[in-house]
């Protein structure tokens, strides 16, 4: 039931172990995002993640709490990087524990879809196209919107 904003890489195995603790629920879903080596058509060599610390913490805590209530999670965790990231490094890790698989998986997906459009992080890429701020994607806004209308699966 917590959020981490961190400069260092995310230790996925340690996060998982901490999420489930001594008595895991029946269903655990996780998602990990990594820095890609490409963006649209060009190569990416490095990513800089700017963030708004106080707001990021508040948005992610609210998001975890509301996903927890909606899907009856017994535990959840959101870890997000900031700063300079190399290709292949972790950006974000989300874990959700529930009684049934549908709830755990949907909670992970809701958190990721909402985080993409609502959490104050901005990606700046370095690569074959020089340096540039990553533009937001219409598809992300569409995925976000699904959760406002859709019934709980």
């Amino acid at each position, binding site marked *: 039931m917590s959020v981490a904003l961190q400069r260092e890489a995310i230790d996925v195995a340690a996060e998982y172990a901490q999420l489930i603790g001594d008595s895991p629920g029946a269903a655990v879903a996780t998602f990990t*995002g990594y820095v890609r080596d490409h963006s649209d058509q060009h190569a990416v060599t490095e990513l800089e*993640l*700017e*963030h*708004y610390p*106080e*707001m*990021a913490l*508040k*948005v992610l805590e609210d998001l975890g709490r509301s996903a927890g209530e909606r899907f009856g999670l017994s535990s959840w965790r959101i870890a*997000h990087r900031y700063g300079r990231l190399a290709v292949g490094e972790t*950006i*974000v890790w989300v874990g959700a524990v529930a009684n049934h698989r549908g709830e755990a998986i949907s909670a992970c997906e809701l958190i*990721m879809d909402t*985080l*993409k*459009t*609502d*959490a*104050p*992080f*901005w*990606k*700046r890429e370095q690569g074959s196209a020089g340096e540039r*701020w*990553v*533009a*937001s994607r219409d598809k992300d806004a569409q995925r976000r919107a699904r959760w406002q209308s859709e019934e709980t699966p």
Partner: protein
Amino acid sequence: MASGSVSITIKLFSALREALGESEFQLNLADVSEASSQVDVAAIKKLLSQRGADWKEALNQPNLVHALNHKVVFVDAVVSEGDELAFFPPMTGG
């Protein structure tokens, strides 16, 4: 009546911060129109747009996001003493 003593913190992020060369500053609202009893985000945008063409352009881009005290708001949100108001482009985390 707008009070001359109202002071808020302005924060800029990402491409906005970069374009305007500032990330954080205090703004005193003494000179906001005294005709309106409340100062809203739209009024702050108007005030900051007077700082120059780059400010005007940056603050009037169609997809600008405004967050008041760490929460995304519309331009009609009312700003009070001690508030933190941030401007930034759409978010691209995750």
